[in-house]
């Protein structure tokens, strides 16, 4: 994927014009949407749902190839079918069952791998699907990522109070006039969209990491829901920077490099906090 030889200044500048800038922009867009969505999903204990949709996305990729449409449409279709079915069985008071999610997750992954294996060999780079291929972001990818992110941010802005209220207590929210079922369903559909666009950058197996790890770091300092969103955006940004840099210089795969950076930042933060406030639990 990457040339191991250190490129000279001039060649590097050409590359910057090209794929590296696209990768950086795609990463920035992803961070902008992963921060608020990640916080909401952690608050509502939905992080595992993104993992499920990610794993099952492999099935979507396979279906996309089989039907000869872009993989992202296959992924989106599978994710939407899953969230529609889940929202039918999920009543007001029941959180999603871990067992159900685990079954969907691994059946989707296994089925997807078999499906991809059945197809003529060189059509697909399975590794890129599983772990992301940020540096191969095309202008088309960038456009769909940008448009989806704008849509998601608008929905978040419009319904933020309701999303936060539902995260605290569905019962209070419902009794005080918020249409909890609608908000919840909207959240599910938004997660399906998010997974479809994040797949390109992070790979299906690592999407949940980008939603959970910067959020966990941010929680250590935050005193309000909004503060947590902003701080996790900063952590996401730092992880993205470190990940892309190491990917470029050491030739690590981008998705895993971003995840390792995010975890390193979390551990570093914990260590610093322990030094500053030794009584931290």
């Amino acid at each position: 994927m990457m040339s191991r030889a250190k490129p000279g200044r001039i060649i590097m500048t050409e590359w910057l014009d090209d794929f590296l800038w696209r990768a950086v922009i795609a990463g920035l867009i992803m961070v902008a949407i992963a921060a608020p969505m990640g916080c909401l999903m952690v608050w509502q204990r939905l992080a595992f749902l993104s993992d499920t949709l990610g794993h099952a996305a492999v099935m979507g990729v396979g279906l996309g190839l089989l039907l000869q449409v872009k993989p992202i449409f296959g992924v989106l279709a599978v994710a939407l079918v899953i969230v529609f079915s889940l929202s039918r069985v999920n009543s007001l008071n029941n959180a999603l069952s871990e067992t159900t999610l685990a079954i969907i997750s691994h059946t989707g992954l296994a089925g997807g791998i078999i499906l991809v294996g059945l197809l003529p060999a060189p059509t697909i780079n399975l590794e890129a699907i599983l772990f992301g291929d940020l540096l191969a972001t095309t202008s088309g990818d960038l456009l769909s990522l940008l448009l989806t992110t704008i849509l998601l941010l608008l929905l978040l802005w419009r319904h933020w109070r309701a999303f936060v209220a539902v995260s605290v207590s569905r019962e209070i929210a419902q009794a005080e006039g918020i249409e909890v079922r609608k908000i919840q369903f909207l959240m599910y559909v938004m997660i399906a969209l998010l997974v479809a666009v994040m797949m390109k950058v992070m790979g299906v197996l690592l999407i949940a990491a980008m939603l959970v790890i910067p959020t966990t770091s941010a929680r250590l300092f935050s005193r309000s829901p909004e503060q947590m969103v902003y701080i996790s955006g900063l952590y996401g940004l730092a992880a993205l920077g470190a990940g892309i840099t190491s990917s470029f210089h050491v030739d690590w795969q981008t998705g895993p490099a971003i995840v390792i950076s995010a975890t390193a930042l979390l551990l570093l933060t914990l260590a610093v906090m322990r030094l500053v406030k030794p009584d931290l639990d």
Partner: protein
Amino acid sequence: MATETLLRARDISYSQGKRLILDRISFDLRRAQITTIIGPNGAGKSTLTNIVNGLISDYSGAIERSAELRIGYLPQKVYVNRLMPLSVERLLRLTRISSDAEIERALAQSEVAYLRQRQVHSLSEGELKRVLLARTTLGNPDLIVLDEPTAGVDVSGEVRMYQLIGELRDQLQCAVLLVSHDLHLVMSQTDQVLCLNQHLCCSGLPESVSQHPEYLALFGQQVSDSIAVYAHHHDHEHDVSGETGAHHHD
């Protein structure tokens, strides 16, 4: 004014699958009155409150609410995820916009003004219940629905909590619907008791309900237990007692 009916429930029935949970329940909620639902575990108390405040809609029967009835609700369990940073003040502003003065007033009324800046997950059970009681009073509610507001609160805190609920009713002139496991503790603050065990066993003034044979059949043992708890409490605290509270309010 004092007798304005805010909510009229007629023949409310509710089943889950084949299991009948509520069987033809009828009652009225009136302004400035406290209605207490008592009944054993599984009697349908929470189900009934959830029907009143709109959480459950697939019941049979009819509920007439007065136009634009504003409800404040304190659920039986609120579990705030530790991963969510949330101050008490923000919890009060969860579903509506309130001024600083309104927040201050609501917290002071429930005697928890000092908790305003605290994080919700650091509160004790008793503090959280007081804060949740305060938030039900924001936005001028016509009806406050309190599902076991004293679960997890110690006995002296429990007595004070019921006194506070009585004071809120007096100040806000709202109707209160209260779920309790213990009639004796709430008796002095209650205008109407609904004794529930799937059907309405009996209803009316607390004094008459506590003598009703169906009530005694359901609660005979528990009543003597609660009196024992009461005596114990009285031994140790002299300033706050249920009985003195009762006389204050008559």
